[in-house]
């Protein structure tokens, strides 16, 4: 077996040194009834060629986004990943290192986490960010639980524009952790006013910007309303690139930002691993979940980095920890950091403009199809279309024509019949004019 360095003579020699005559002696503590005599019923070892053939065969049956005109977003976006990103994150010193608990042997990881935290704070317009969580959806649930701790209240009001998966994750946590979630109905193209639900028991209002249906809103007024009521404003961002173009949550008065960072540096990966971003205000830092890298000095007085404020975390605080999270999305955070370092301010804002321009071009084109209507007043790189017939069937028909047309909202809201005609469509810098031509043509055919 190519991954196992011990040879049979090694094994014999080692068993002799230990003073036992067989490996079974070392498993003597396992109750006899639970010992397996031989291998379980699974295939035997395979060489690299065979494994590659078998698994590549599975991959080849999937339609890769890059192989067709592709317009799907909804919390995971297809962007260009510069070659340097994937090269650098595969350096063994990053890829095969552990959580930086030994700071002297992990200054590389700790420094990029410090850079990552700074980038996230700058992008979101917040004061402090952590070293990542699993994904945007779990970051959202963690944000609500943090708001509960800060306010000592137990009810979260969720906007209908919050990604339905994020809402569902919050609802699962709510049931078992023990808090209440009041979710507004989805209202694509419409407006909503959560202020009426904010009461003395409300810990936070959770909004998403741009919303799940793509709409961009100013939440400054809502932030003031929340603060007056002693509640926090949590802003979810599922397309982090939008922060290169629109007013960041921090400037609108957000207290916590929970975001999905996949768009920078990370592939779609069928939904994971992705990258949970989490940012807040300095005054709440001790209630934050997850790891934090901080600056300090070493014994020679030189600047260095450590994990800090660890008494919030499970390995020290155990049942009183702010979260049970241990492993996070470290390497995805590195990919994010490298991609954003390559982009810089100029590149980020330009990339954001390219995305917005592509989405406008697409919207203007699709709006001209009879009976197709764009529902958004404002959007970044994703918007909602109302189609004259159920979007799910249209998407399937377009998939057969080799176009991945977007998300039929009914897939996420199966019981909302009034949403059946809504199609969520995204365009990015990867979308070409030819892609739009093919989408336009195929959609006209499918609707005719």
């Amino acid at each position, binding site marked *: 077996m190519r991954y*196992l360095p011990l040879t049979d003579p090694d094994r014999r020699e080692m068993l002799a040194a230990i003073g036992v005559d067989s490996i079974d002696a070392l498993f003597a503590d396992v109750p006899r009834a639970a010992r397996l005599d031989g291998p379980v019923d699974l295939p035997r070892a395979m060489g690299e060629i065979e494994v590659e053939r078998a698994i590549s065969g599975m991959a080849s049956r999937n339609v890769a986004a890059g192989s067709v005109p592709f317009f799907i977003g909804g919390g995971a976006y297809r962007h260009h990943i*510069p070659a340097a990103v994937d090269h650098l994150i595969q350096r063994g010193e990053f890829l095969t290192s552990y959580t930086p608990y030994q700071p002297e*042997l992990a200054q590389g990881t700790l420094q990029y986490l410090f850079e990552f935290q700074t980038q996230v704070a700058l992008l979101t317009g917040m004061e402090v960010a952590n070293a990542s969580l699993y994904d945007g959806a779990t970051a959202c649930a963690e944000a609500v639980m943090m708001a509960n701790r800060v306010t000592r209240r137990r009810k979260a009001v969720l906007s209908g524009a919050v990604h339905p998966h994020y809402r569902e994750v919050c609802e699962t946590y709510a049931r078992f952790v023990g808090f209440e979630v009041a979710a507004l109905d989805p209202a694509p193209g419409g407006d909503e006013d959560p202020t009426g639900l904010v009461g003395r028991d409300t810990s936070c209002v959770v909004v998403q910007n741009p919303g799940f249906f793509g709409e961009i809103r100013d939440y400054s007024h809502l932030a003031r309303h929340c603060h007056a009521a002693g509640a926090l404003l949590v802003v979810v961002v599922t397309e982090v690139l939008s922060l290169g173009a629109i007013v960041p949550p921090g400037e609108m008065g957000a207290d916590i930002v929970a975001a999905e960072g996949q768009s920078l540096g990370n592939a779609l990966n069928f*939904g994971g691993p992705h990258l949970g971003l989490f940012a807040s205000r300095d005054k709440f830092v001790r209630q934050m979940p997850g790891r934090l890298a901080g600056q300090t000095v070493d014994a020679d007085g030189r600047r260095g980095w450590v994990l800090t404020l660890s008494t919030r975390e499970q390995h020290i605080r155990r049942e009183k920890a702010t979260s049970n999270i241990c492993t996070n999305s470290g390497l*995805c955070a590195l990919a994010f950091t490298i991609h954003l370092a390559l982009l*810089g301010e100029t590149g980020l804002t330009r990339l954001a403009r390219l995305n917005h321009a592509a989405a406008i071009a697409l919207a203007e084109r699709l709006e001209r199809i009879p009976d197709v209507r764009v529902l958004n007043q404002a959007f970044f790189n994703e918007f909602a279309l109302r189609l004259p017939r159920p979007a799910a069937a249209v998407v399937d028909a377009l998939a057969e024509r080799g176009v991945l047309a977007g998300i039929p909202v009914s897939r996420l809201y199966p019981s909302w019949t009034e949403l059946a005609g809504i199609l969520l469509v995204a365009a990015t810098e990867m979308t070409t004019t030819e892609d739009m031509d093919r989408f336009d043509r195929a959609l006209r055919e499918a609707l005719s």
Partner: protein
Amino acid sequence: MSDWSRATGARLIGDRAPGELAAPRETITGNRGLQIEENLIFEQGSLGRCGIDLADPPLFRARLGGLERQGPIGLPGLSEPQVVRHFTRLSQKNYAIDSGLYPLGSCTMKHNPRLNEKLARLPGFADIHPLQPVSTVPGALVLIDTLAHWLKTLTGMPAIALSPGAGAHGELCGIMSIRAALEARGERRRSRVLVPESAHGTNPATAAACGYNVDSVSGNLQGRVDIEALRAKLDTDVAALMLTNPNTCGLFENEILEIAAAVHAAGAFFYCDGANFNAIVGRVRPADLGIDCMHLNLHKTFSTPHGGGGPGSGPVALAASLAPYAPLPWLVHGAHGLELVEHKKGKTQQAIGRLKGFHGQMGMFVRALAYMMSHGADGLRQVAEDAVLNANYLRVRLKSDLSLSFPGPCMHEVLFDDCFLRETGITTLDFAKALIDEGYHPMTMYFPLVVHGALLIEPTETESKASLDHFADVLKALASKARLGDTARFHAAPRWTPRRRLDETAAARKPVLRWHPEPIEQQAEQ
């Protein structure tokens, strides 16, 4: 071919006096040969530079609703060579399993095969969207189903929940499922979860997050759960026992069948923390131990890389009694082949709901399956055997120099305490830092909490005998230095790292958690 570590083993011992150890440290640059000082990107970049050439956006009328971002964000601009050099230099300040033995107990730092990386990056996995039509991703469903089949076969459990993002998330999934099952049978009142003293911190944190009171169970003198203490605590108020097996002392809970029976007799569930599954994979099926629920860390047993802290993946194996509560989505074999069920309906009516966006850590599934297929049923069994053999080999090589906490064979990791350092003025931490100077990552320290000054060593199965011999020689030599009173070596360590001991107290008292630009206004005023 000779093993490199065998070669370096020859020049192990330097019998210099303590004072001779300090080499001149000062250089003009602060660099030391291959160790290059590296500033933050924020201190290197300048506005206007960019490492990516992007097309000019066409003219358009913005539809941002008047919410255009104003003012600079503050991100530095760097060219590609600057970025590549920056992160390459940072990488060179890290220790990694690629560069040496990484004996962190309970963390399972084993070799990460590169085939797995290659396969996870195939466009058919990396470049597919979680919400594209299911009909366009049949291969992805087959891969997930195949992974599930392997995990079910290896655990002997009938169901597997794949969506949890890492081990701790798997724990949440398991304890939530247990609570849902208890509620379904009308038992809302059970309020306690029993957790042994030696448990990972995630166990009590998880139980508390799910609304349970954590009740600690003491261990016995053999490093296992004290079954009488456990029995005394088991009553109709207990929802579950969370037990790690093999436990964090590196020992198999030899009374596990009695433990399972006692837990079940009290009407509670038996949760197993599967962090140490690598010790028994292919040789023991958790289902045969009476376990109802166990998370698997794909980044431990199944070799997906730790990546400096993540991402991981924490599938949860479930007994039939808990299977109906598995979180969404479910992958089921339907009339038309594999179906992805994303909402509660029919058989999924009792599901606890969604725990994570989309469908789980697909990138990790690909890597883990490639690892399992490479080993096969026979190879996985060998993995467990070699992991246990390596740990026991270190145990006997070190038992007369370090102080073994518990007698007898261990499983995949071996636990020492700091008795061997008594009266030396050297702590476990000092000892570990001296190990750094010798080119090794330290073992897990001060965990588990059940012995004083713990040193928990897990070599894994991917170390050669020569590598273990060298490591053992270094530890023995260091222990001897400690006994002989060479305290300066330990107290000053580490000397040869990019940074020496870091002031964690200062970091926590006045946290600096991000870079801030020099205050420009003040400069302007001067």
